[in-house]
């Protein structure tokens, strides 16, 4: 009984509540929730790499940006594009880029991997920044939100704010469910094994390269999905979407939330975005809100100092503290 509440009823409740939120919150907060959901999806996709497989990528924004650009460029200029084919194609483009760059970057390990992924992302960045493909450094507009349609029958029109909200929510939920199932499956177990000790996995008979590459491509595809949603949300894409700072931001979300658990990515995202929101708020901080980087930075430092396992480790940490007041390994 207890576990079924935890595993089924609670998430369902959460879903329903989130789905109903736009009815009570203002337009702005609805948009904020959409933003949080998109970034959560983005962070989840990175969690698959960083927390679940141990592949720390500092170039994940490339896929976010590539798909965002793809959907923008594929859309006809003055009418609504059809996501039914644009969605898979845009994600597919990101995945093809992931296949090529992943096959190359996975030859390296550790910090070297971090830097190679960064390099490939910067290449994508400069392609869009320095050439005219996508409007150069100024970026380009997606004038009309895309929709799902078959023939003339419009299934989902994302121009409607609530439809879009629900669409993002469903994407996020499906991604979560998909990743949760994935991580419990044999494939996921193998990823965990690679995270912990790749050498042993190979000795046992796992071709780890294939696993890592698959994980890399899946993560990129999901990152691309987030990018598409982002482009649809704002109708504007810019090369900065795939800059290393964007990659760094989503990495921070994962680290802050805690690594290895899906909820970590989401909690990290929510926290980071809300903190930014709060410290920037003139209503709360008055004139000092201009210096929000200071308060935000300090908040991050404090969070790290107090929570060695990220935000999701917090309950565990508190329980452990209550249990044994002393007698841990000496901290030298």
């Amino acid at each position: 009984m207890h576990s079924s509440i935890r595993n089924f009823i609670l998430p369902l409740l959460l879903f329903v509540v989130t789905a109903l939120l736009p009815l009570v919150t203002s337009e702005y907060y609805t948009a904020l929730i959409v933003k949080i959901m998109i970034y959560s999806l983005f962070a989840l996709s990175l969690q698959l790499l960083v927390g679940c497989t141990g592949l720390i990528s500092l170039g994940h924004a490339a896929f976010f940006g590539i798909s965002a650009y793809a959907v923008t460029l594929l859309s006809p200029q003055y009418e609504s594009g059809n996501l039914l084919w644009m969605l898979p194609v845009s994600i597919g483009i990101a995945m093809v880029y992931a296949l090529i760059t992943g096959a190359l970057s996975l030859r390296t390990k550790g910090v070297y991997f971090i830097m190679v992924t960064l390099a490939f992302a910067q290449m994508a960045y400069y392609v869009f920044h320095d050439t005219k493909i996508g409007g150069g450094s100024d970026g380009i507009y997606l004038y009309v939100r895309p929709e799902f349609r078959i023939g003339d029958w419009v299934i989902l029109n994302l121009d409607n704010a609530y439809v879009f909200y629900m669409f993002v929510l469903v994407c996020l939920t499906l991604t979560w469910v998909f990743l949760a199932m994935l991580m419990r499956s044999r494939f996921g177990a193998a990823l965990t094994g690679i995270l912990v000790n790749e050498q042993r996995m190979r000795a046992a008979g796992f071709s780890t390269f294939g696993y890592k590459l698959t994980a890399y491509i899946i993560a990129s595809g999901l990152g691309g999905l987030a990018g598409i949603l982002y482009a649809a949300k704002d109708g504007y894409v810019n090369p900065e979407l795939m800059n290393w700072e964007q990659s760094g931001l989503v990495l921070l979300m994962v680290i802050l939330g805690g690594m290895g658990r899906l909820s970590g990515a989401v909690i990290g995202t929510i926290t980071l975005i809300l903190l930014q929101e709060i410290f920037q708020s003139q209503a709360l901080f008055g004139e000092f809100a201009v210096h929000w980087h200071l308060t935000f930075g300090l908040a991050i430092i404090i969070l790290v100092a107090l929570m060695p396992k990220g935000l999701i480790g917090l309950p565990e940490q508190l329980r452990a503290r209550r249990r044994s007041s002393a007698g841990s390994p000496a901290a030298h």
Partner: protein
Amino acid sequence: MTVLINAQGLNTFYGASHVLFNVNLKIQAGESVGLLGRNGMGKTTLIRTLMGHLRPTSGNIVIRDKDHTRSAPYQVAREGVAYVPEGRGIFPNLNVRENLLVAARSGVNGRNDWNYDRVLETFPRLTERLGHGGQQLSGGEQQMLAIGRALMTNPDILILDEATEGLAPLIVAEIWRIIDTIRKSGVSTLIVDRNFRKVLANTDRCVVLEKGVVVEEKDSATLSKQPELLTRYLGV
């Protein structure tokens, strides 16, 4: 004879699991003590507690009349305690020569018996591999290096946790011979080794741990004449 290490009533935890229960251990200067017990009984834990890597929840550790219960490992080491850990702890990114030189130090009262040349004389195999990184050594070579490195600190007491693991019989014999010389030169030793016969033969006294409790503490000579005890505690 002066007491070098005197640990009283040690209780050590890993998180919530209680591993050492009221352990007492006293080592005199020049004395050689063996630590016996099956796998997982807490031998390594006891050593790490003595070294200051783990902090006991209760009990106290006195080394040379100074309280070191809450000291950091480097403070303990500076009292002339050298440690060859289980798993060797070689610095993989330093070559053999550097692994040795980084540890070089004269002993507590300025003794300088052990230096680079003497260590290499003792382990000629290392001489051939001076420029190689620690990571590239064979298992046995690493073990020699770890012992050599500990000796470079000119210790008064040498703690060997499974120091002969992975060594060829010839070398093992050599190491026991060295332990014997070290012992004869007045350096105390605390030895954990799976070859209990050798331990018994090379120590003055043995402490037997079972589930974190000291269950036996006897002269090595006496203990070796009591096979029933050995069977009970070591399963042989």
